[in-house]
């Protein structure tokens, strides 16, 4: 089962998106684990995640997270999808990031 972790400043606004992504996953019958945390907790909480997504407002933390979580796919969420809380699209983007990794 894939584990997706979303990080933002405090894990609050990403928490809203996580809820939508879980609904989308359930609707599509995809079983995966999705959580949210703050960027400063990411080193611990996202250690066992398969994909890490970053809120666009903290995309300047990308470099730090990549260093903290070597070898893991880390990317910022597209701003429009983030704002409109499009759980299905963000879920799709996250899953395609793990596929890229499996192929490598």
């Amino acid at each position, binding site marked *: 089962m894939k584990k997706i972790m979303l990080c933002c400043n405090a894990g*609050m606004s990403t928490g809203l998106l996580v809820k939508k992504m879980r609904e989308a996953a359930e609707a599509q019958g995809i079983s995966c684990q999705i959580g949210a945390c703050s960027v*400063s907790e990411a080193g611990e909480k996202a250690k066992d995640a398969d994909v890490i997504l970053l809120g666009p*407002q903290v*995309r300047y933390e990308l470099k730090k997270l990549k260093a903290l979580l070597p070898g893991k796919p880390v990317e910022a969420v597209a701003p*429009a999808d983030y*704002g409109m*809380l499009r759980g299905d699209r963000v879920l799709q983007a996250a899953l395609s990031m793990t596929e890229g990794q499996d192929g490598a």
Partner: protein
Amino acid sequence: MKKIIERGFDGFMRFASSKSVTALKDGFVLTMPATLIGSLFLLIANLPIPGYGAFMTRLFGPDWSVGLDQVSACTFDILAMIIAVGIGYAYARNEGADGISCGILSLISFLIVSASSAPAEGGTVVTGVIPKTWTGGNGVIAAILVGLLVGKLFSFCHRKRLRIRMPAGVPEGVGNAFSALIPGFIVILLSMAVYQLCMVFGGASLTELIFRLVQTPLQNVSSTWAGGILIVLLISALFWAGLHGPNIVMGVMAPVLTANALANQALMDGGQAAAEGLRILTPQIIDCFVKLGGTGITIGLLLSALLAARSGQMREISRLSFIPGIFNINEPVIFGLPIVYNPILLIPFILVPLIAFVITYGAAAVGFLPVFGSVQVPWTTPVVVSGFILGGWRGAVIQLLILAVSTALYYPFMKRQDRIFAEQEGENT
């Protein structure tokens, strides 16, 4: 022009992601539980209700608050120690070195360069103590500098593999215990030299010198109209560019503003409520007034949209964002509407927080709103509730006023955006 602006924001991004600023932000976050829990106890000791103290004294005797006071003395008054541990820890951890060893080392270094004596009554000096004068708000900047320098040194030693290596076969735990020895020795030796030099040539500890020469001027500048306006402008401008303004600006300014709040508390505890030296600009003014409902005070935009929006997009986003907005979370509006790089909404997004700042700072300057001390509320505390806890009914009134101003000011800009959305939707169908 566009290039220059983009380059400017890129600069802020590089600044915000630099090792030192990241460690400063990550380390300062670790003080949050202490200050929020300390606030609760401090609040119970000083509820903003007239006659409360006298009432409690009649009920439980004059010592009714000693326990409560002890808690704030052991949370707020050791803030600098927590910062030293936190920043040292965060810096080393982000560099892949052993965080907690570096955090402890940073605390030791901070204590070495701070005074170990305190003046007592009658001009005598008590020795062999850790004076809380320097471990609380007054030691904040010194603790940050120590934390960053120790973090850098420790990580440097880690990178250069400057450590005692045990022969193969020695258990890993034993090896780790030895690996902090060389960086530890270097850090402590340097701290000792700094203490010696400061005492001999400066006549005071490094912590005290930094407080006098760096922190006090910084605090004074931070709490002026110009300082406040600059902070407020930067927060909005960065978020308009899609970067987390409060995180970047307050990441750097929160320690200074928190020191303002702690110094105010000390003055108020001394019974000098109306005394000079109170600094108006504290973190509470930013968290609960200038970004009420989220950066840009977009709650007014949502209210005006709920009242009068026609287009599907405007109605959808305001419906989606209203409940999070009550808890001061507004990323959905900022990225969803979007406000990011939107020229129409730039004006109110910058202007409304500025007006809110002028109202709040002005109300405190003329004495309508009390100047805030150490009591803080979590930044997700809803409007009116946070105002009441911090400033009694006057705090709640100021927040309602800001809410009204925000709604009125956003209204014309919301309508303009709404018309554009409606036209686009008309074309699509």
